[in-house]
């Protein structure tokens, strides 16, 4: 994947303009934590249309994308109830009005579609419990391709399968990333890794853009390698009002404000005018939050630090080959190495 741009570091505006197109399929990579609201707001602000939107555990992200008239088709496993029981949220209203198609999977089958996509498979087996449920039988825009059935050649049993999902764009908010796009995320992951690796283009926003040194000392926290990422946005509070381990808890002040907006017939329209269309970017969103609710409210949800015990990645020799004396990785000298190569008999270990 050749990627010759001078830099991947850009603004949310630039990333969404460049990489999200009308008609695309777009997935929120985050599970329930760190939802990428800055990127979602930007998509709504740029009035993208006709998207197929994937959200595993849909919450305000789904409501916003639907209310922003961005989404024609929704693929999900769970929808948090917004707007109270009577009125219902935007998904319900749009679905009843025939303006939104919804394809329901379960958590595991939703994940399996992404796992297939991440592996490059066209399908993936799923758990048999799905076959006799209405999740299997009732189909919306996926039609015949929502589920299929194959016969296991080893057991002879019929096994339900799901088709791969390879969304055009994955939106991901993480704790830290570097300028190459290496993105580190910890906490509850759900299907996040599969969502990233299955997607064709990945946009990462992060609380902090950090030195490569930080990333390379903690490689197991990197959930998506830099070369797969097209854009990196340093965006403090990029997931507000949702929570992020190490940074903050859910901002209930804002969430209750949002919940209350559903009660008007207009739904989220006036909230959008004030908070989405009315503000150019995330920095002004946070500034507006402070103007409206006060900085104390913002700080109230700030996390108290709880740091991981370090993992020691040390090896005996800083380099395998260019240190002094006989302290090579292999502990042998040149003669010994020549002998090893002669014994191996091949230039290339047939790996």
């Amino acid at each position: 994947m050749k990627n010759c741009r001078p830099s991947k570091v850009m603004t949310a505006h630039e990333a969404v303009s460049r990489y999200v197109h009308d008609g695309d399929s777009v997935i929120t990579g985050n599970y329930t934590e760190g939802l990428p609201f800055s990127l979602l707001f930007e998509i709504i602000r740029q009035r993208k249309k006709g998207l197929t939107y994937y959200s595993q555990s849909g919450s305000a992200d789904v409501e916003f994308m639907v209310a922003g008239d961005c989404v024609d088709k929704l693929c999900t496993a769970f929808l948090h109830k917004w707007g109270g029981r009577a009125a219902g949220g935007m998904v319900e209203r749009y679905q009843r009005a025939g303006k939104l198609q919804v394809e329901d999977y379960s958590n595991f089958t939703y994940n399996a579609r992404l796992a297939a996509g991440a592996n490059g498979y066209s399908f993936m087996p799923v758990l048999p419990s799905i076959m006799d449920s209405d999740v299997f039988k009732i189909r919306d825009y996926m039609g015949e391709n929502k589920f299929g059935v194959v016969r296991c050649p080893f057991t002879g049993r019929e096994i339900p399968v799901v088709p791969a999902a390879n969304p055009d764009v994955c939106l991901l908010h993480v704790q830290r990333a570097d300028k190459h796009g290496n993105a580190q995320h910890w906490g509850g992951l759900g299907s996040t890794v599969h969502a990233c690796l299955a997607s064709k283009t990945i946009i990462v926003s992060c609380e902090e853009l950090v030195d490569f040194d930080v990333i390379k000392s903690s490689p197991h926290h990197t959930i998506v390698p830099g070369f797969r990422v097209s854009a990196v946005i340093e965006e403090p509070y990029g997931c507000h009002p949702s929570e992020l381990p190490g940074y903050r808890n859910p901002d209930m002040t804002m969430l209750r404000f949002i919940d209350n907006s559903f009660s008007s017939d207009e739904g989220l329209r006036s909230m959008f005018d004030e908070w989405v269309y009315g503000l150019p970017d995330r920095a002004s969103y946070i500034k507006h939050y402070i103007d409206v609710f006060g900085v104390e409210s913002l700080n109230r949800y700030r996390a108290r630090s709880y740091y991981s015990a370090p993992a020691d990645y040390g090896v005996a020799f800083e380099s395998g080959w260019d240190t002094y004396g006989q302290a090579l990785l292999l502990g042998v000298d040149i003669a010994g190495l020549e002998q090893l190569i002669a014994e191996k008999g091949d230039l290339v270990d047939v790996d």
Partner: protein
Amino acid sequence: MRDLNAPANPLETLAYIIAQQIEDHSVVYIGTGIPMVAGILAKKTHAPNITLVYESGGQDPIEGDMPWSVGCPMTWRKSPTIMEMSYSFAQCYNGYVDIGFLGFAQVDMYGNVNTHMIGKDYHQPKVRLTGSGGNNDLSSLTEKMVLVGLQTPDKFPEKVDFITSVGWLEGGDSRKEAGLIGNGPAAVISPWGVYDFHPASKRMRVKSLTPGVTFEIAQQLTGFELLRPEGEIPDTKLITPECLKIIRAQVDPRGVFTTMPAA
């Protein structure tokens, strides 16, 4: 702090009844709400060695941190592991989870569960509910599946509006004939009664009732004909004063899940 001496309310009783289903040393898949109270109560009382598994991937977060939902950080806060979700579910599918609790908006006479929508047309829902989440995924995996929810005739209909998770399907051998593995639902627990399923017909049957609730009251709260067990219907064992104090003082001191909602 809550009044430790007030009589138990139905939610506290429910949490206790659920907790009694949990054996020590077992692996328990926990759903949001009352099952979390029950799991933590069990761990603090008769079952200190259980492992609580959440679909977020967290397992065994520190005691006393009641999560708000199965997707919240409290499900992995100071947990010894956070797995990817697919691995978390796979543990059930491989038979390593002993008991799981599924919530329902509706449950029918054969233990089929609906958490998707109320109404006759999927595309024109009267009420759109949350959808499956992990409900379906757990339903044929866990060794012992227990369904937990409120009981009204609407919530206990003859046939659910949407089968999110398959229970005994159409009763009799229909589940087995459909090729489903897993043991099927073992029990339904509401504030008013504990129900099991008739071994042959797989129809829902009273197992025990909350003291003060008669078979007739239970029937009136049910949208289909309940089966009556042989002999006298036992009272559900009520929460002990010790457990009540533990719920109120330690497990749910703010009464988040075990205070009765205002009418």
